[in-house]
């Protein structure tokens, strides 16, 4: 249970840490925008690796039931999402400000021509929710299945 508490504490406090940190503290060491995006991209890779590990470990332990298969699908979709998001962030460096125009407000934003492969991939990457939403749906299905199967096991 001590391990769970540590994880809980870590999970709860880490997101709040930047909010509590004063601006002056950031100045202790110079960190530019590039460094931030690198950290973010590494986080995507780290998250992908963790999901890959989870996928592999669930398969290795051969946990029985549909719930665990759904969790593996979730892992696959989230890894794909990570790769799409990583690509989107990376391609963002190759899209100039002039490549995106706002003729009549934000909602009318367009990627200007001529359309290159990079621009097309970047556009696809902006639709990353087409992977992340199904991934979350499978996570939801997975947990619901696990809950119901545990319920049935208890009844038996």
């Amino acid at each position, binding site marked *: 249970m001590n391990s769970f508490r540590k994880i809980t504490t870590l999970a709860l406090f*880490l997101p709040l840490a930047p909010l509590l940190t004063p601006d002056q503290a950031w100045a202790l060491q110079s960190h530019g925008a590039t460094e931030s995006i690198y950290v973010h991209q590494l986080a995507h890779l780290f998250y992908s690796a963790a*999901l890959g590990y989870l996928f592999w470990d669930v398969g290795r332990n051969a946990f029985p039931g549909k719930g665990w298969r759904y969790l593996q699908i979730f892992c696959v979709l989230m890894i794909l999402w990570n790769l799409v998001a990583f690509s989107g962030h990376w391609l963002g460096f190759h899209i100039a400000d002039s490549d995106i125009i706002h003729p009549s407000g934000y909602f009318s934003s367009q990627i200007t*021509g001529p359309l290159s492969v990079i621009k097309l991939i970047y556009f696809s990457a902006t639709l990353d929710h087409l992977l992340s939403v199904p991934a979350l749906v499978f996570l939801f299905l997975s947990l619901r299945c696990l809950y119901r199967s545990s319920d049935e096991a*208890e009844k038996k």
Partner: protein
Amino acid sequence: MTSLPLSPAIVTDMVGSLFIIIFSFLSLRYAFLLTKKQPENFLWGFLFYFCMTLAAFAVSRAIGHLLKHILLFSDKQELWQLISPISGGTNTLLMISLAAVTIYYHKGIEGYQAINKKARSLKDAYDQLEVAADQLQGMNLHLEEMVAERTLELSASEKKFRNLFNNSKDMVYFSDSTNQVLTMNGAGFEMLGYPVHGAPILNLLGIFKNEDDLDKYYKTLLAQGFVEDLEVEFAKADGTGTYVLLSATAVYDDAGLFSGCEGIVKDLTRIKTMMEQLAASEKMASVGQMAAGVAHEINTPLGIILGYSQLMMDDFTPESEQGQNLTIIERQTKACRKIVADLLKFSRQSESSREDVSINEILLDVIAVTQHSLNMDHINVHQDFAEDLPLIVGDTERLRQVFVNLVNNAHHAMEKQGAGELTMITRYHPDTHEVVATVQDTGHGIPDKIRARIFDPFFTTKSVGKGTGLGLSVSYGIIQDHGGRIEVESPVAVKKSEEKMPGAAFHVKIPVTLVETTSVRE
């Protein structure tokens, strides 16, 4: 197409962000329910923390994206520029946290598996214990019934063998390795002449009359483990011996050492007496045949001697020396002829007539003839005749001769005492269909050593001239010719008492219906 509109991406982003929040919280709900249901399950714990971090990440990212769209719609790009790094940084941190929680799961799952393994083994042990407890409980429930049932069975078995032990007509005994008798049934004590209750402690050393027999018994028992049909003589309490047939089995203890024996002993006295009687009857039969042959051969020359001597007596006066010698020759020849006639009677060579005969009448005739001479020697005659005695088929004269012989023998046995009691008894035994006539005296009795020979021809204890030794032989032959037998008892048992009185009793047993087994030569 010269440009790509980003409006679908904006709509997808906004709607997708909302869905992400919804599904992440729905997932969190089920993860929470799982942990609540099975708090001890590590996997549910992991999934709960994973979903919680994911929900935080989803909220952070969705809010960031929605804020971005809202602020950019409202043309507040500066504000978004301010918030953007915070949102991005938070997302990054939450993503790392999510990855960390997932990686950390590895250690947790190992611990969980170890605990689970222990739990399973404990559960198995518990299940086994439960099964054992159930069995134990079942056994306990039936133990009392089983004990009661077994006790009944044992009791019945013990009773059966106890009855066998107590009611056996043969001796049954158990002895230890020192030959001391540990247990013996009543028949055993009776056989040895000891009281059943209060008998002394016995040892086989004292029971075996001959040391050689005991030695043979003991050696055979040790060598073979059993003794079978060993004929030995046991010493009775009064010092006399009794012949027995002994079978015994050695008993060994847990270490395989000889610890004693259990034996069964059969009294052979009755069988031995029967065997002696059988041997005597065979001997009498052979003697009878021989006597018949001799008598037949002698009878003719004796007749010639008698005839010629009587012819010569006509030539001499009785007072002359020759006449007196011839008288002596005639008398002695007649004596010889009488002996020959007796021998022929013994061997059943003489003529016989059969008719219905009353034993009581024969005995009255005998008493009438002999009473005078008995009274001269102060011998009292007692009669104890059965009134409803059935008739038998027989030769009156010859049967009378039998009883005269028996009375004369009784007279001779008592005459030296100068007094005595002669008792004549008749009885009918319906179970054997026999008439029993007993001639009993109070004389000196018959010693054991000559008892087997008293029916032998020419055997006598009387002084020379008083008996020829053929009386009992002839009587034996006559009674046997009537399908009966003569039994001798000496000393005589007193009725309804264990005491015995001196004297002898001859029991003549004749069947009422004569079975034509013997060749009656009419």
